[in-house]
């Protein structure tokens, strides 16, 4: 063990001596995967920064925040990319994040004025179904129908938490009644998005909680137009994915450069067909062909970041009570 530690120490020391500065970005797993935006983003940024961009995958959004909390001020990360508005307040409360100076002409459905985190993409949560099925028009209709849905557990999954917030934002005090109606429509609750989507593709449910942009994947990457997202008339909850830099980073300038790059054309054009979300700043050439077929919710719902924590705990208790009966 001692020798290994020594070897690891020597290796770290060597890389610190290297001439090119290294920027470490913690992000979620699917961002760094070969099919995610990671490889293209890395190539594009390294072209302009004379640096080495190191993308480190750390589970999903919530796992990412837990990791930053574990590492504290000693973290190797310069930038954290992949938190969403449900997590930003908790992230800010750690005191580990620095303010940013990024400005851009965001094409988000809402006004953005957070001085710690800058958005890079966004999407609407939605139930995805087979296009040949008529979908219910809202949660109440869904609850009254015999449509089977599969959702994710809010305690272990980001979309699962999104759904919790969605129902709460749309129905407030009456959220628990909505959940009680939905209980018999829920086939099962999975630990993560992958399991739920897998079950849906296997035909175990009529609808699955995902994003309005999911059908774009099937259309563009698989030339399969059989999937659609249901528009709910109470509005759709937004997920805005953000990044921020850490105070402890010794590459402050490079981190700033990365954040500016993140809202620039080069980064934003990569997002739609790799992360399958809407870019935070629509590129000059517009969205890729196929995105125009996606449904447009009439209303965007979002619980402000500073209230998200408190709402979350209440909503979770209601959810547990309604579904445990």
């Amino acid at each position, binding site marked *: 063990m001692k020798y*290994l*530690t020594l070897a*690891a*120490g020597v*290796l*770290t020391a060597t890389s610190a001596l290297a001439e090119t500065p290294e920027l470490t970005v913690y992000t979620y*797993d*699917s961002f760094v*995967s*070969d*099919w*995610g935006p*990671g490889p293209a983003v890395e190539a594009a940024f390294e072209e302009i920064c004379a640096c080495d961009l190191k*993308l*480190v*995958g*750390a*589970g999903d959004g*919530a*796992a990412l*925040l*837990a990791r930053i*909390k*574990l*590492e504290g001020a*000693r973290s*190797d990360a310069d930038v954290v990319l992949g938190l969403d508005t449900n997590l930003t307040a*908790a992230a800010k409360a750690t005191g580990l994040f620095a303010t940013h100076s990024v400005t851009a002409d965001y094409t988000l459905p809402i006004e953005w004025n957070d001085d710690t985190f800058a958005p890079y993409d966004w999407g609407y949560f939605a139930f995805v179904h087979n296009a040949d099925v008529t979908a219910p028009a809202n949660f109440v209709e869904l609850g009254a129908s015999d449509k*089977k849905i599969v959702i994710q*557990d*809010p*305690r*272990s999954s980001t979309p699962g938490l999104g759904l919790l917030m969605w129902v709460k934002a749309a129905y407030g005090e009456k959220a628990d009644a909505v959940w009680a109606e939905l*209980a018999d429509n*829920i*086939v*099962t*609750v*999975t*630990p993560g*998005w*992958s*399991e739920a*989507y*897998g*079950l849906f593709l*296997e*035909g*175990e*449910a009529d609808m699955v909680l995902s994003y309005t942009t*999911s059908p774009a*994947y*099937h259309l563009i*990457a698989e030339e399969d137009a059989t999937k659609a997202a249901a528009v709910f008339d109470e509005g759709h909850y937004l997920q805005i994915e953000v990044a921020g830099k850490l105070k402890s980073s010794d590459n402050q300038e490079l981190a700033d450069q990365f954040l500016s790059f993140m809202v620039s054309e080069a980064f934003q054009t990569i997002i739609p067909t790799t992360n*399958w979300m809407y870019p935070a700043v629509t590129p000059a050439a517009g969205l890729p062909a196929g995105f125009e077929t996606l449904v447009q919710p009439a209303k965007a719902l979002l619980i402000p970041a500073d209230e998200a924590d408190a709402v979350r705990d209440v909503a*979770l208790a209601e*959810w*547990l009570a309604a*579904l*445990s009966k």
Partner: protein
Amino acid sequence: MIKISPRLGISAAGFIAALILLALGAVASRATGDFALAPSDWAAVRFTIWQAFLSAIFSCLLAIPVARALARRRFWGRGFLITLLGAPFILPVIVAVLGLLAIFGRFGILNDMLGVIGIEPLSIYGLQGVIVAHVFFNLPLVTRLLLQGWQSVPAERFRLVAQLDIPPSMVFRLIEWPLILRIIPGAFALVFVMCLTSFAVALTLGGGPRATTIELAIYQAFRFDFDLGRAALLSIVQLVVAGGAAMMALWLIPVVNLGGGLDRMQRRWDVQMGFSRGLDGVTIALAAAFLILPLAAILVSGLRGLPDVPISVWMTAWTSLWVALVSVVVLLALALPMAGWIATSQHTSVEAVGLLGLAASPLMIGTGWFILIYPFANPADWALVVTIFVNALMALPFALRILVPALRDSAQSYGRLSAGLGLRGVRLWMWVLIPRARAQIGFAAGLTGALSVGDLGVIALFADPDRATLPLQMYRLMGSYQTNAAAGAALILLVLALGLFWIMDYWGRRNAIAE
């Protein structure tokens, strides 16, 4: 009686305890809140124990007729079927679940058949689904353990039974029941503890938050609330329940000496004909269908997805392979001395220490070691080392359960002779214990290898693009809409794990003294 020096065994047990307790301590040391459980946690504890109990009962009860039938019959494909018994155990949860759904799902074969005869479709989601999945994972394992018990009966016994024309019911009472009694409590404890840490199976098939297990509560404490105190406390609850169950089960195992024989091949003259033959045939066919149909579904979708599998998956397959091989070495280094110590000691309950490795939440161990390593080195550099130790730790209780009875038999039957010849230490191991336990060592090594290939383990916590293992890569594929490629990766994983299992198991069974 021979004496096997307990020194190495005790060190191995101490090492395991340290691995778990240091992690637990590290997590607890970073806790800020008070150490308290939420009321919902107690509901999770109750549900966890109940589902683990039922899963273990069903796995054990159903395994008895299957093992009995397999032990009595020789047929074409028997060896292959026995190898396949290792398969469900190593599958990543989501792969196994999708395989099971091909049979029990909304449009699965079972509901298709029920539809033909006009019966309402059955839903797998709920407690029944959790149990079906856990039985799918564990029935084969218990069957293998029991089969091993049958094979430890000296062939002379069965010859005598046939000569005396003793009826099967009497054979059951005289020979089979004592050996079932000897194996089932340990197997029960093993399955119970295994199901105790279930998280994804219970949640996915459990149908909702009613099916919240302790492991999910730990998950929630870590990620949702970042309440490390609660996470540590829940881990302790898990360890205490598992430890308690293990002590109780091991205490129940009676001391049975089947006596020595001449290590001939068993032949069963006593059950050649008639009703028992038909019954055995049906039992084996049903068990094989339950086992093979989901695997066939995985095979079919995997073959379809194979062309989509990117090159990176093959590279992670290589990583998984060598991680598995090193895990096997680590496991044997821990398990052999411990098993030798337990087999010759009066305190059989020390085997419970081995079970703790399985009961400890991988998330807790991973996080604990992350905290411990972080001040000194980059945890990502250590990801594979921690993974190897966790793999060995998880496989250890299985290895002990496999090895201890064999070593105990050897010690009882050959102890006096060995002592008379002055065999001790390395020579005793090389000349008496290892050759006689070769089949068991091969089985344990194969199981560990396969388990290591299939387990997602702690690597996800430390993840780093360059150090992914095959299961992690498969999950990443699933997370990026690459369902087909993920199915292909799952097939590669299945073949790799099963191949590894088969090679080691075959090494053990080939030329083994008692097949």
